């Protein structure tokens, strides 16, 4: 085990499952015997506001927050939120972005503008972005709540441990409480991995 710390920033908006995703990642890390810290922004932010969770794991983790410019992976559950936090990434870090656009009332009302293409913006600045429509995949699988599992699947191959261990954390939760959900979550996890893979191929071809 090296001393290297893995920094993952999970972001999105209130109610999207950001906290659960971060929790699952952390559980996978401690199941490995790693030290882990997970910070969240709670309180007012829950009511549809900006939500982030910092997950850090490794042999010994000190600070509970990720220093800007040192995140290895940015998992964005919403595309503009991805751009909001992109500067947290270290050079060479990866942004895994769900392309769903959640337009807040202040934008609807015309007080602010939603960026036309946040992904293009990030790319223009040199950020490595892999983007795909997790909502569409979830709908195809029959349940929008699967977005969470899909996004975790998408980063599974970028973690310092086998994807199967993360999958086990997700599926294990359902095995006890809702066994019927096991299979569809396995599918969602696999679909997330595939989506990330094709997003990667597409990006490097472009």
């Amino acid at each position, binding site marked *: 085990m090296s001393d290297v710390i893995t920094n993952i920033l999970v972001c999105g908006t209130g109610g999207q499952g950001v906290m659960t995703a971060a929790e699952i990642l952390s559980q996978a890390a401690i199941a490995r015997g790693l030290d882990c810290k997970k910070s969240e922004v709670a309180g007012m932010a829950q009511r549809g506001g900006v939500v982030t969770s910092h997950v850090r794991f490794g042999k010994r983790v000190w600070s*509970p927050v990720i220093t800007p410019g040192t995140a290895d992976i940015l998992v964005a559950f919403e595309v503009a939120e991805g751009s909001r936090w992109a500067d947290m990434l270290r050079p060479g870090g990866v942004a895994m972005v769900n392309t769903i656009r959640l337009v807040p009332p202040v934008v609807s009302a015309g*007080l602010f503008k939603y960026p036309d293409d946040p992904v293009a913006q990030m790319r223009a600045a040199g950020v490595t972005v892999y983007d795909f429509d997790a909502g569409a995949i979830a709908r195809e699988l029959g349940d929008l709540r699967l977005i969470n599992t899909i996004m975790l699947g998408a980063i599974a191959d970028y973690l310092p441990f086998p994807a199967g261990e993360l999958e086990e954390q997700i599926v294990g939760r359902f095995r006890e409480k809702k066994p019927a959900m096991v299979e569809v979550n396995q599918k969602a996890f696999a679909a997330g991995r595939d989506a990330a893979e094709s997003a990667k191929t597409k990006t490097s071809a472009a």
Partner: protein
Amino acid sequence: MTAAVQAKPQSRLLLSGNDAIARGVWEAGARVAAAYPGTPSTEILESLSLYPDLYAEWSVNEKVAMEVAIGGSMSGARSFCAMKHVGLNVASDAFMTVTVAGVIGGLVIAVADDVGMSSSQNEQDSRFWGRFAHVPVLEPADSQEAYEMAKYAFELSEAYNTPVILRLTTRVCHVKAVVQVGEKVAHAIGGFKSDARRWVMTPANAKGLLPAQIAREGKLQALAEASPLNFLDDGKDKRVGFVTSGPAFMHVRESFPDAPVLKLGFTYPVPLALVEKLAGQVEHLVVVEETEPLMERELKAAGLQKIHGKDLLPRLGELTPNVLIPAIKTFLGEPVPPATTYPKFDPFPRPPTMCAACPHMGVYYSLARMRKNVQISGDIGCYTLGAGHPWNALDSTISMGASMGIALGMDKARSEETKDKAVVAVIGDSTFLHMGMQGLLDIVYNRGNVTVLILDNRTTGMTGGQNHAGTGKGLKGDDTPRVDFTKLVEALGVNPERIKKIDPYQLPVVFKTIKQETAIPEVSVIITDRPCVLSEFYSKIEPYKVVDEDCTGCGNCINVGCPAITVKRSESKVRPDGKVNELKFTTIDTAMCTGCNMCVESCGPKAIVKAKPAVAAE
């Protein structure tokens, strides 16, 4: 959370600081625990309520929570109370005196500071209270320490006959980290023994106890010097040595892995000799503390040399690595690496909004429509969101329960310009019971002309839906008597004819009632009655949709503020007179809509209709 309750001794768990404290309190054998919910401290009591052999309650406010814990301690039970920083202001009266009387069963007070202000009306440093009250302060830096110190605090409390403050910050409370738990120790309740000299704080009795308080402080000082909670984590780079406490230690260790760091957990009384020892080994000493330069001043006052602190570091907010590294490097004359390599994109802001169908929206929608003629005094809670878009319907929010008194002040201080404006105070159910009642009594007593809106959504919404005396449920979900707001308000002296109970979903009724009551020059109280959409009392019904052909793009429904309603298309239309009309055609997210009916009332052309058949997953 449940995992911690069932966890076997020695198991390794991922726990938040709050859950870790609960486990520590339970393991210490505490028997009484009380709190009023407040971010970031709320989950401590929620977590404690799951443990057996322990009485846990939501109190109406922190003062009462403190009093309950004091009563427990007097009776020989290990007792605990928890609150957020501003809560200790509320509880301070009882607190400042129990510190003189002392304890029987260990008395531990967890106070959580919202450093960085994620959801509070101010940022204040609770460590001051330790100095003010002459009680020891323990400051954990992560979940493991929070758990251990919670346990130790009871022993300390009993051994030195003093309440103990466990000072927390958001980054302890809400950070999950690995904790190895231990075993519960049994601690019987001795029962109350009458001792008036000790418990009846007449001047003569209290005076007799004061010398003991001062003597105790001296002993605690010696204890802090020797405490294993204070230790030197050495390093070879002797240019700067750091003195830290709480999560600041973690940030320093991360930022400067080679520097010697004095890690203080037992932070008051300050272990001066320890600091002096470190000072002897390094060129400079930097005190890294969140938020006030408390220790820094104490060290300087004690005559220690080469002390730095707030001359290099910010006084506000968290001292995270991105703050520490540039500050210290600049001080040492080293180049500061650029903080980030990617630019900041800064898209639109995304302020928190009320939930779809939140019963508060109708009230703010109505207030917004009479905005020019009302002054609105607000309070702490979800309904503070009425200050935001699209309502902009609050003129003040100061502190918990203050809306009434402030409204009375506004009423009594009318100017020529404001003499015809109605003064409205808006407060929630939990907040009204917490501290609002006294303010209403004062309005009645002093013949104020204020319209009080009690928005009863049968929960403590902002902190996540906790029960209170107005919900008919206790902390554990058990049935209890439910306060009757109408009767309560009447008992405070409000004219029964001026008490109106309304359904906030009926927009015309809401509007008419507020209009009518604000026109009458005496105190009136309007009580709304619809549960929070996140509470167990809420039931969703069939959703609505917008019929495209009928929608004129007037945008009226947007002003209700429901997040389920969004603009799907905007259009600029030039009217015959040359003026441009901005049309906004809307759509309703049927998955979010609960069918509350509020927006329907706002729609002139009746374009909002039932979306049958109910759309599940398209």
